[in-house]
């Protein structure tokens, strides 16, 4: 049992995070103060939300590289909506952001489902198309803080029970995913499609439709994050969250979600995102230039994927031994 716990991906990652934090705390104790940790969580909230959406896409053997562009486009769209109609209540804005994001996810999903185009090609293409559309609708202009209404900007920062709404949304999404992935037929279908698409067909699961559903989910979450991002930083322009899709994929890969599909957990995605979030927030504290960020996430992806490959190989052997013992 203890050995099994030790072998679990989440435990190793959790331990790595603790070691990392202890190392930082030994030199800079203020880093682990509860208020600072709450800040780190809040900073990481967008990454957590997107990593969870990306997780289900990767579970179904797909990948969504358009999430950051989707986020930026939705963010720009709701910011423009806000400048035109400042009186629009927040629930309506949230709904618009979710729907717009889901629509873009649906485009990805339909291209993968109905036309059978490889996911990497589809989302590489839509990534640039979405970014281009931001330029077209905004004319390359920025939307700055003074053009947004106060209620629009205040929502993600409003403090509720000691944490900002942004953090609470990330926590709520994570809780929702625990239920969705672990307790619903759709969640089961994500794993089935990724684990063995042919077998999934025989159990009555529509592979394409499940993949499409994963894209819609990922898109909707990207849209939601788009509003939260723009409102939190109080600025919208063409290049917001540029390259963020790599960080999202990195969080998933670090969290032990197999790029080959069918393997992964909500806890893994969560810890993967937190790991990157802590590294990102610790860099300025330990006086390392933020320019290191890109190389660190790149190395993290490579190390994690190499680690995944070796650990999954070992797992196969363990199962065989167990079966022999049972006989």
């Amino acid at each position, binding site marked *: 049992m203890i050995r099994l716990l030790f072998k679990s991906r989440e435990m190793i990652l959790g331990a790595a995070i603790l070691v990392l934090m202890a190392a930082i705390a030994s030199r800079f104790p203020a880093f682990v103060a509860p208020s600072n940790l709450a800040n780190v969580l809040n900073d990481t909230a967008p990454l957590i939300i997107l990593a969870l959406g990306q997780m289900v896409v990767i579970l179904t053997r797909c*990948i969504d590289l358009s999430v950051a562009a989707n986020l930026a486009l939705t963010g720009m769209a709701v910011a423009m909506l806000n400048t035109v109609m400042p009186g629009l209540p927040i629930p309506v804005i949230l709904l618009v952001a979710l729907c717009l994001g889901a629509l873009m996810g649906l485009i990805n999903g339909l*291209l993968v489902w109905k*036309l*059978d*185009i*490889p996911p*990497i*090609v*589809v989302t*590489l*293409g*839509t*990534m*640039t*198309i979405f*970014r*281009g*559309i931001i*330029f*077209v609708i905004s004319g*390359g202009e920025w939307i700055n803080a003074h053009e947004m209404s106060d209620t629009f900007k205040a929502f993600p920062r409003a403090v509720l029970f000691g944490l900002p709404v942004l953090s609470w949304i990330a926590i709520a999404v994570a809780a929702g995913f625990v239920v969705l992935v672990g307790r619903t037929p759709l969640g089961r279908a994500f794993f089935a499609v990724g684990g063995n698409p042919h077998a999934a067909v025989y159990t009555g699961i529509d592979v394409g439709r499940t993949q499409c559903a994963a894209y819609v989910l990922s898109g909707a979450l990207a849209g939601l994050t788009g509003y939260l991002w723009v409102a939190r930083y109080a600025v919208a322009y*063409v290049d917001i969250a540029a*390259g963020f899709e*790599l960080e999202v*994929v*990195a969080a998933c*890969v670090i969290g032990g979600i197999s*790029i*080959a599909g069918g393997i992964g957990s909500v806890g893994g995605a969560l810890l993967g995102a937190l790991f990157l979030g802590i590294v990102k927030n610790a860099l300025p504290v330990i006086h390392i*230039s933020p*320019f*290191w*960020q*890109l*190389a*660190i*996430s*790149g*190395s993290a*992806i*490579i190390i994690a*994927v*190499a680690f995944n*490959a070796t650990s999954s190989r070992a797992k196969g052997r363990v199962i065989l031994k167990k079966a022999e013992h049972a006989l």
Partner: protein
Amino acid sequence: MSLVSPDLARRQLPDRLKTPLQRFLVSWELLLLGVAVAVFVLNSFASPYFLDPWNLSDATFNFTEKAMIAFAMALLIISGEIDLSVASILALASTAMGFAVQLGADTPVLVLTGLAVGLACGAFNGLLVTGFGLPSIVVTIGTMSLFRGISYIVLGDKAYTGYPSDFAFFGQGYVWWVISFEFVLFALLAVVFAVLLHRTNFGRAVYVIGNNPVGALFSGIRVPNVKFALFVLTGLMSGVAAICLTSRLGATRPSIAFGWELEVVTMVVLGGVSILGGSGTIPGVVIAAFVMGMVTFGFGLLNVPGIVMSIFIGLLLIAVIALPRIARRLLAGRKD
């Protein structure tokens, strides 16, 4: 009435293969050539400046460097792998050359530096994919951020300039009248890669691996070695492109060639290479390079901003793959 059932008839082999001419007449390459001619004619109507020889010569710079990478990428994609880190390799090679300049290196050393860094990055990708058996998409997404990340660590928000004046020849030199050195290199490499893919055992092995990696292994092809060589080749070509681009721009920033991996993959796919591997030709990629270069140049003459062009490239990438599938489905529907 035919005695053979239609299902069986479809499986029958033809008595004689189509002649090369017949095959050419229904090929993707001919369709692409038609598009290239149409774009050329449209451009010359759209702008009075298009048909100037010097303008046309300038237009070739839009695609020569990308096409050099695309040739190697075509081989890699045919073999069933992909390299998304090419633009980052280019950035790292360019940064290394800039660094060498600061140490007082002269032109031959700069060229060697660029090639060596490209080679090393390609070998690193190849080692991770073939040595550890990792999926190339994730590995190269990782190295894409790692290689460019190293450039950012070295350069930050600064830029390297001060390349020696004779280094400018690679990107700005002309061999004869309006024919630039880059264009000659592009044409030369096109021939080399066409021969390599279509006339050698190595090229044959690339196709076999793309169609059936297990079958390739059983027919005695050293699959990991071939794949490793292809990754090294792609890295090397990214290094060559880095020399040309750095020489043309005369400066290195860490954001150099940002987003080129998309354009290179689009070029390869537009050239008729199947993204799933196993089929495609170098002449197709060459024509695709011309089409993309001409379209970008035409848009440029019409003052269309670069980011709007990228919408077009994204649409092109999806449409090129989607349209044949839709057409095939419609044709299949009509038969039933």
